[in-house]
């Protein structure tokens, strides 16, 4: 074999050996066990700690809030959506968090007018099933918590079903009268029932009617007829129709 060919082959062989040696030396230990990747990385990724915890994790520490939350309409909204995450103050919600609470894990959300509107402001694209408000006209500058218990917003902080804010002027009694046509077949056209098993509604207390309809709607109070009726009503409908019956004369 000519000398120059031998040299060439030697150089090639050296490079080949270097390549093989590098291939053996450099890939991480677990590379290629399951496929063309580092098998240990799957475990690395899976080892991270969850930041969002089940609401049950907070039930012992906050029994009162948990009870209100778990029985109310907000039970689909888990604790950490509004409260700061256990991940600490670097989170988005930290900006909404006041120092009011003693617990660092779950402080109170301080500014509700910035928090609640994230879901409840009336904007283009938000589906109708979601209760929505025109922020300025609805709240009239008040904090949401002035009327609503944030853990169960159909009730006030004192546990009373929410009626329309302030004056009766906000409630649309005319709309309530229109809606009451549905009620008339059982409860009577004037809110006085002709049938013994159906109660009179005329002159009934407004918070009671709101509470009853809300509970029929949520299923807390079960009734095949009223459950169906209440589910077709919005929160505003309930307030309006309740105000209409409450305003009728007692006979």
């Amino acid at each position, binding site marked *: 074999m000519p000398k120059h060919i031998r040299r060439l082959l030697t150089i090639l062989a050296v490079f080949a050996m270097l390549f093989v040696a590098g291939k053996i030396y450099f890939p991480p230990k677990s590379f290629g066990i399951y*496929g063309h990747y580092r098998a240990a990385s799957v475990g690395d990724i899976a080892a991270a700690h*969850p930041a969002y915890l089940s609401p049950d994790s907070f039930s012992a520490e906050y029994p009162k809030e948990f009870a209100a939350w778990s029985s109310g309409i907000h039970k689909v909204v888990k604790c950490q959506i509004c409260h700061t995450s256990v991940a600490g103050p670097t989170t988005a919600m930290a900006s909404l968090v006041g120092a009011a609470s003693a617990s660092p894990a779950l402080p109170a959300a301080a500014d509700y007018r910035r928090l609640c509107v994230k879901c409840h402001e009336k904007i283009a694209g938000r589906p109708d099933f979601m209760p929505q408000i025109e922020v300025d006209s609805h709240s009239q500058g008040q904090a949401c918590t002035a009327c609503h218990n944030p853990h169960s917003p159909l009730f006030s902080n004192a546990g009373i079903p929410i009626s329309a804010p302030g004056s009766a002027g906000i409630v649309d009694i005319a709309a309530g009268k229109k809606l009451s046509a549905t009620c008339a077949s059982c409860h009577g056209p004037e809110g006085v029932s002709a049938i013994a098993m159906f109660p009179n509604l005329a002159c009934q207390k407004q918070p009671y009617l709101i509470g009853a309809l809300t509970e029929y709607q949520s299923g807390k109070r079960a009734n095949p007829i009223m459950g169906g009726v209440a589910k077709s009503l919005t929160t505003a409908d309930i307030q309006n129709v309740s105000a209409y019956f409450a305003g009728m004369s007692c006979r």
Partner: protein
Amino acid sequence: MSETKLLKDQAGRRGFISLLGKVCATTAMCSGVGTVTLESLKAAAASTSTPVPTPAKAEFPASGPVPGNDWTKRRWAFGVDVTRCIGCLRCVEACKVENKVPFNPQDFRTWVERYVYLDGEDNARVDTQSDPVNIAAADSPQDYRFSNRYRNEKVTKAFFVPKLCNHCENPPCVQVCPVGATYKTPDGVVLIDEKYCIGCRYCVQACPYGARYFNEETQTTDKCTWCYHRITKGLKPACVDVCPTQARIFGDLNDASSDISVFIKSHRISVLKAWTGNGPHVFYNGLDGEVS
């Protein structure tokens, strides 16, 4: 012949390339080229007696490296019910917190798009939480909210579309990775090995959904993992957990009673960019034809 027919087929071509890779891997001639599997490595070790690092059996069983989670038995999938999304962006914030995504207006593992048709306009106006108007509506850059920008317009139609990594059956991002830093697990999740990624961003370009972003803090690519650290512990992904309207659904396709199986069974579902042949595994209900 059947071989040429097979080659015409997209999946068949992939299979052929994969087979070629396995053949290459077993021969010492081109070790390191193509797909290296456990079997091909063993075969390579047996045939050429090159010192391949032997796996620690206890640490890497066939059922997967995460104890208590047999990845051969699961096939994760995700559902999005567009008709239920209210655009509250709780999922976006939860994802950022859960996965330590940088709190800036550009980088997201999941995001929500808003499509708005105004009276007299043929095309939808699309914005996301990253839109400057929406950023201005939020209180801080760490806080996301859709502004009420169409308050005084006549809107004929509007809806929100949550988006995230589709965890494709044939992920193009995995195909282009030059170092094997991104891969698909047997339970159907496309993951990124943060320690092995060289930050070339080729995969960011390859993804047809724009699901990947480059994390300037870690100098690696990052994307949705369906919260792999949660689902392997029996939890739901953070975005699914926080969604107040159940617009996001997650579960195991191998379990006929899981949320996702029931969702797929009971809705007329579609996927994004089905024509790419990637086999996306995020299933949408109520998706408008305009959305891609």
